[in-house]
């Protein structure tokens, strides 16, 4: 896992690229919780948002000044920047159901 790892949306599979989901995962170093969170997130996105998501991982140990912008307290924190409104999910994202509710993906499916 690296800072600012970006998963490029796969073009062409859906004509809904306008509705790209921008997700940002805040971590502080490669802790087990962070790694778990990242892999959980990736699984969820691949399952429910295939091709229309973008994940940005921010390591606060390297860029501490960024914690202020999204009001990060808890680590790990997943921030849904787009679509609006901003949603925050804290924790290692192990409870998939709650993550889906938190990301507003549950009613959509």
């Amino acid at each position, binding site marked *: 896992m690296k800072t600012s790892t970006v998963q490029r949306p796969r073009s062409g599979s859906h004509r809904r690229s306008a509705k790209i989901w921008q997700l940002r995962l805040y971590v502080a170093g490669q802790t087990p919780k962070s790694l778990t969170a990242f892999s959980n997130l990736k699984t969820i996105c691949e399952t429910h948002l295939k091709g229309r998501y973008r994940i940005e991982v921010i390591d*606060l*140990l390297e860029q*501490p000044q960024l914690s202020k912008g999204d009001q*990060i307290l*808890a*680590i790990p924190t997943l921030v849904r920047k787009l679509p609006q409104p901003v949603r925050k999910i*804290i924790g290692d*994202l192990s*409870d998939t159901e709650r993550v889906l509710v*938190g990301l507003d993906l549950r009613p959509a499916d």
Partner: protein
Amino acid sequence: MSNKSPQSTSPTTHLPKCPTGIQGLDEITGGGVPRGRPTLVCGGAGCGKTLLAAEFLVRGAAQFDEPGVFMSFEETDAELKANVASLGFDLAGLARRKKIVLDHVYIERSEITETGEYDLEGLFVRLNHAIDSIGAKRVVLDTLEALFAGLPNEAILRAELRRLFRWLKDKGVTAIITAERGREQLTRHGLEEYVSDCVILLDHRVHDQIATRHLRVVKYRGALHGTNEFPFLIGDEGLSVLPITSLGLNHKVSSGRISTGIPRLDAMLGGRGFFRGSSILLTGTPGTGKTSVAACFAQAAARRGDRVLFFSFEESPNQIIRNMRSIGLRLEPLVQGGLLRFHAARPTLCGLEMHLASMFKEIAAFQPRVVIVDPITSLLVAGTDFETKGMVTRLIDFLKGGQVTSLFTSLTHGGHALAQSEIAMSSLMDSWLLLQDFEGNGERNRVLYVLKARGMAHSNQVREFLISSRGIDLVDAYIGPSGVLTGSARVAQTAREKAEALASRQEAARRQRELQRKRTVLEQQIAGLRSEYETEEVELRRMDEQAGARTHALTTERTELARLRHADASTAAARAPGQPISKSQR
């Protein structure tokens, strides 16, 4: 390891302390809050927690060159700047100069979903970044308990808070953590169990509709501290705790004297009036003329050219000026001339702390040499006796420090209450004048006496106190076998004495005349007796002569007879003394 050497285990006598710069607080805590450790400040809503924390940071940055981080969980940066700017703290300026970092932590539970394990490393990173960016020595977390509302998992939160305080200690920053007062414990969420070094409790109590703030150091591990509750006030220059016990007594003193405005009163006070810079208490029952004496003093001082500040808690300035005109005091020109200033306020207008703050402000602005508070007892309704004493102590201290002469009037309600309020204050005062009224013969009369006057030979006499349209005057009260008499009783007594004196003079004259008469009679008698005596003497002498002549004739006759009888034997025997021998020889 533990008993390796006495040096390593012996406790350091002085815990390093971090001065807060807050007036009075450093005195109570003996130098400030524990350096490099967190201090918990708890209290209910609106008791000044945030302000105390902000002042700690601002003073640290401005006075002690210790930059600070203010992490606010409630107010935004802009709100915080605006709030403390009203108290004279330039938080914005300090933030611009990189002396203070303001960080608003916004947490909204509805935006947060919790899934699985997490920690608060984000907060740590953020705080660490803020501290390192300016090399902060001080940290404020206001109010950390907002986290309890924002984060659902209390178990994680508590574990993380414990870690946070540990981390703050390791970081070596002096931190102030504010918390809401809980129902049964010091803080709502029991933060005191994490912060065990120093706990300060703030309180905002309403007593008889007057709110007063109090501060108490509940706990200060490893250091002596004042355990009392101290009133504190929030003024123009931040917080000010009033530690009565810590006030020093090292004012400069002046031996200069100033007139009371009443010549006879000056005479009672060793002939020259009060000491400059001393504090004077003037107590009296209602209507004894306290304000008049105070106004007289004010006029005299202002006419000398001293600036006089008159705090009135009973009458409006115009009313005082009008009333004093009736006893011949012209205060208006002095007010217009800028030498006399009135500051009138109702005692119930605000709490004691605000009164004190506004008085300090007025005094600092006007720079008076004489301050009059009329009456100080009115302020008792704005606080308890103890608080008022504390306030008066503080005020006197402040005034004495500036060599300002202060006169406090104090209203008493007769009887036993006379000694009640003054006992608390009288020990603070250098001079104490007492005004009293005597009732009798259908009238009331005022008397004045000097109860104490430190450092001067003062009169122990009671003087009758007269207020007339020409001003105030003192006359000797009649002190005699029937007690102290004043007013018409004194006049009557004087008249009676005059009559008695006249009568006794007349009596003496009469006795003199009688004596003269007796003497004359006696002399006449003596003259009579003498003439009688002289008559008798003449008579006696005449008789004596007759007797002598008769004896002579008899003797001559007898001698002649003897000679005739030749009885010479009896010649010698019959010779009587005085009888010349020649006669018998003859």
